[in-house]
């Protein structure tokens, strides 16, 4: 697989290229020059080859010879004295024809060019004159012959002059022609040699390049082979993707994973071998994260998908992408891992965990049932013993009865502890917070353990700093249970020592913003060794005391204490030194109600107030911050309600309009639409029009309160919202919402009377007026400065209560009267904010119901 091709050596090629071009230029130039020369040479050769002239020298020479022959013929004739002139005439004719040859065509031109035209003209003139005599009568010819013989030597000399002159000129011409040809041939030869040199050099360059390319190919082959080996050694299938998710190359463990040939998959779309979890086709760059990762050339997050083999079988895979540059083209490399084994392992683990959890739950349930079943007969035993105690008994019987009672009581205590463990594990316990006074709570607890302390000859002291007269909000039952267990534990391991109980209200760095009641129980008993420190909270563990002192108990006490603390949102720290003692410190979350305690009776009445078990609520939570959202969800679930989470105001309104919720929890500042606007819209129309809304704000200014009221938010909680505060608000809502029907809130007979007496129109008018004034009353409630306006508040609520009673709003009248009494009874106005909010929420419901009853509005869907 050639994934990565070498891109190096690009720049070193540049000069070679230039060299190549210069060679090419030289070669082309050489070819042109050579062609020119060859053409020239060929032309020259052609000129030489096709002789355009007869042998001029010979012809001219021949003229001299013919003249001589004529001269000889004349001499012979004169010597012989013959009558026959035929031979003489023939000789003349030949002589004459020779002059003709010389005078015509190229030879004449040659003679003219060489300046012998006059010489030739003279010869011709002589020949013409002589021809007249030759052709004339024989006697005249014979008379003329001696004269002719005298003239012919002169003619011969004239012919010779031309002949010699031409001969030297011809030699010059031939020489120059030869020189030119020689030059051309020489030039051709030099050019040819140069061409050979150029060609040779080119050849050398080509051979060098050839060897270089071979070397480079070997190098690249080696790199590719090494890379292939590396890639093929991985367990991942590696794909190179081109445009449109088309597979360009496949490698790595592809063949093993997909049981298909690498070559066969090339060019196919990615979808042919991979589908997404939801069986949809994979779309690259589907998430912004993937796109960003690819653009940044880093590997994307691992995605899950399903691989598809050629035979149709499927297997789970994980894949990721990375962008790389191959041959200057952007390609996407994809890594696919077979996770079939991991998936199988995971499902095995999950199954094992579920089984273990089921077994543990079954154990808890079993213990719960057994404990519960044991408690009933034990109560029977105890009851019976008490009955027997009333009888007249002998001293011996009384003693044994005492033993039986103590044993039964202890057994009951053990059973109840075991039961509370199982209840905690099965999450059957719920928090029931109430307002209580810390110091009084501790005093009471101390009293409960006074007997045990006396038995072990221990002293108990309470020291408090900032909790004097402090009233807080929390589950006293659970708190009592935890601190009780800690006290019991301390008393068990301390002999003739002192137990110091201290309490403090403080914030913790562990949960900033939340308030904790910190109670520490310090003893000076035997202490715990550091190796045992981790074990003490485990179930059924009893650490033997120093000196082999046997400690009675189930070994559940501290375990239960820790579970309960955890359940309530707190925790227990322990510090201990062997032989010196231990300090157990409980952090218990409480509401931040800082009101002075009333007298003991009222507190006990308040804390003893039984909270009814309420149906789970369907709650819509709008919160943009993810962490807050998770905390809310968890808190709501823990409280046994069903949350539905949305992330902004728009989603909140959409959900609220569609579905009728029992309560809406809403953050004030959210993207897209803030809480106030969302509340306004929910109130305007839709299924949750009348659903109570709990607003959550980071700051609590008067401005916010007014806005809240105007927009229809019923409760206001400030961040961070503790579980108790939330529970309190939700309890109020479920209490009122659960009061199904109008009976407890409205008095229908009163309403009927009003309608009867005043008539429909007048009644409605009255109702409207009542609603308007009561709205105003509640709006003003927020603006009271409580410490100064107790009387004012008492008067207002008295008036409003009276009107409410008249209009048939029974419950509202009751609540307002109660508030009025409280305000009058104590100048410091011990009316909690929660109570005010409750009253406000009650008014919201009452208002809707009244509107229905008096026909001011259509019946509400929800309440």
């Amino acid at each position, binding site marked *: 697989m050639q994934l990565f091709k070498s891109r190096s050596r690009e720049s070193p090629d540049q000069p070679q290229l230039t060299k190549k071009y210069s060679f090419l230029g030289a070669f082309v130039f050489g070819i042109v020059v050579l062609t020119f020369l060859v053409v020239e040479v060929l032309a020259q050769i052609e000129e030489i*080859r*096709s*002789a*355009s*002239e*007869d*042998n001029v020298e010979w012809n001219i020479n*021949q003229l001299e010879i*013919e003249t001589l*022959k004529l001269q000889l013929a004349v001499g012979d004739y004169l010597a012989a004295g013959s009558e026959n002139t035929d031979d003489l005439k*023939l000789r003349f*004719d*030949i002589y*004459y*024809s020779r002059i*003709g*040859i010389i005078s*015509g*065509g*190229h030879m004449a031109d040659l003679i003219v060019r060489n300046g012998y035209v006059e010489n030739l003209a003279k010869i011709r003139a002589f020949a013409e004159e002589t*021809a007249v005599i030759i052709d004339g009568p024989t006697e005249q010819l014979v008379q003329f012959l001696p004269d002719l013989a005298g003239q012919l030597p002169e003619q011969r000399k004239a012919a010779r002059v031309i002949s010699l002159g031409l001969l030297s000129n011809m030699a010059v011409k031939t020489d120059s022609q030869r020189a030119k040809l020689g030059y051309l041939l020489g030039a051709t030869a030099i050019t040819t040699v140069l061409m050979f040199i150029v060609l040779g050099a080119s050849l050398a360059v080509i051979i060098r390049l050839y060897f270089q390319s071979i070397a480079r190919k070997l190098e690249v082959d080696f790199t590719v082979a090494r890379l292939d080996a590396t890639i093929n050694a991985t367990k991942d299938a590696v794909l190179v993707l081109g445009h449109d998710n088309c597979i360009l190359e496949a490698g790595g463990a592809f063949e093993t994973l997909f049981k298909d040939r690498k070559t066969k998959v090339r060019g196919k779309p990615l979808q042919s071998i991979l589908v997404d979890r939801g069986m949809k086709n994979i779309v690259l760059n589907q998430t912004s994260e993937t796109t960003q990762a690819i653009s940044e050339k880093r590997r994307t997050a691992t995605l899950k998908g399903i691989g598809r083999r050629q035979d149709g079988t499927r297997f789970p895979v994980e894949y990721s992408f990375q962008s790389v540059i191959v041959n200057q083209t952007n390609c996407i490399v994809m890594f696919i891992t077979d996770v079939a084994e991991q998936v199988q392992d995971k499902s095995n683990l999950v199954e094992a965990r579920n089984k273990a959890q089921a077994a543990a739950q079954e154990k808890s349930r079993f213990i719960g049932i057994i404990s519960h079943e044991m408690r009933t007969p034990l109560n029977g035993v105890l009851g019976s013993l008490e009955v027997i105690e009333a009888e007249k008994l002998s001293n011996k019987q009384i003693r044994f009865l005492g033993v039986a009672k103590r044993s039964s009581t202890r057994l009951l205590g053990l059973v109840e502890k075991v039961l509370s463990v199982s209840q905690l594990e099965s999450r059957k316990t719920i928090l029931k917070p109430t307002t209580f006074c810390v110091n009084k709570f501790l005093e009471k607890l101390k009293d409960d353990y006074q007997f045990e302390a006396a038995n072990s000859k221990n002293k108990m002291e309470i020291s408090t700093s900032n909790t004097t007269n402090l009233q807080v909000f929390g589950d006293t039952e659970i708190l009592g249970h935890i601190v009780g267990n800690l006290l019991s534990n301390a008393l068990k391991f301390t002999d003739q020592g002192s137990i110091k109980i201290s309490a403090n209200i403080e914030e913790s760095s562990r949960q900033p913003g939340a308030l904790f009641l910190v109670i520490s129980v310090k003893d000076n008993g035997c202490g715990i060794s550091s190796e045992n420190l981790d074990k003490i909270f485990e179930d059924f563990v009893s650490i033997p005391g120093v000196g082999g002192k046997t400690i009675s108990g189930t070994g559940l006490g501290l375990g239960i204490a820790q579970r309960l603390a955890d359940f309530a949102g707190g925790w227990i720290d322990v510090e201990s030194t062997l032989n010196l003692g231990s300090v157990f410190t409980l952090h218990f979350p409480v509401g931040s109600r800082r009101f002075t305690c009333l007298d003991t009776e009222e507190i006990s009445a308040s804390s003893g107030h039984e909270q009814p078990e309420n149906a789970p609520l369907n709650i819509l939570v709008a919160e943009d911050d993810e962490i807050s959202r998770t905390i809310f969800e968890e808190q709501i679930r823990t409280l046994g309600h069903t949350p539905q989470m949305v992330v902004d105001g728009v989603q909140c309104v959409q959900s609220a309009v569609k579905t009728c919720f029992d309560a809406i929890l809403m953050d004030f500042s959210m993207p897209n639409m803030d809480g106030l606007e969302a509340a306004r819209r929910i109130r305007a129309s839709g299924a949750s029009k009348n659903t109570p809304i709990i607003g959550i704000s980071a700051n609590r200014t008067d401005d916010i309160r007014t806005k809240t009221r105007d927009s229809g938010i019923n409760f206001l909680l400030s961040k961070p919202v503790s579980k108790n505060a939330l529970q309190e608000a939700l309890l109020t809502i479920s209490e009122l919402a659960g009061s199904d029907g109008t009976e407890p809130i409205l008095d229908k007979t009163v309403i009927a009377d009003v309608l009867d007496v005043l008539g429909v129109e007048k009644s409605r008018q009255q109702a409207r007026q009542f609603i308007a004034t009561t709205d105003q009353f509640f709006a003003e409630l927020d603006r009271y400065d409580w410490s100064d306006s107790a009387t004012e508040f008492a008067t207002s609520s008295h008036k409003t209560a009276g009107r409410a009673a008249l209009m048939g709003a029974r419950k509202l009248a009751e609540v307002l009267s109660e508030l009025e009494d409280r305000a009058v009874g104590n100048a410091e106005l011990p009316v909690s904010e929660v109570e005010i909010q409750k009253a406000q929420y009650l008014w919201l419901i009452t208002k809707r119901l009244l509107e229905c009853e008096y026909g001011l509005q259509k019946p509400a869907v929800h309440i």
Partner: protein
Amino acid sequence: MKMTTANVTFSVGLWIGLAFGAMAEKLPVPNTNPILTVSGAVSNTNVKNNSVFDYELLRSLPVTSIETGSIWYDGTAIFEGVSLVDFLAEIGAEGSVLEVTALNEYTIEIPVSDAVIDGPILAYLMNGEQMPVRGKGPLWIIYPYDQNIRYRSEVYYARSIWQVSRINIRD
């Protein structure tokens, strides 16, 4: 020269062919002044062992004409005469070389292989007129210089002999 049987047979056949074709008529004895005497290896003879031609007898042979330029005159001229190939056939020449001699005793050798169709002629008319001795007459061997570049060379210019008076044919 030794001949194989096949060659002998071929030669005999050839001569029989020639005897019945070209040598159908025996050369008559010329009536006027002879202008050309062919001696040597000739079979169709009329005077002693030679073939002798006067002007009329030459004209009775098949006529071939060539129009060509040459180095001896300006422009082109039309020559008429008997082609060398026809001429040699007529006289029953048996040699391989012609020794052609002019009136001025200028002698040149022409190989018989020159005697081809579209080759040289033994011209007796130039531009339709007889050629006098003063004008390279009476006979002039002319090659078709314009028609064939091969003939535009010094060798052929030398063979273009004028004022022809004798031919001797030898092996």
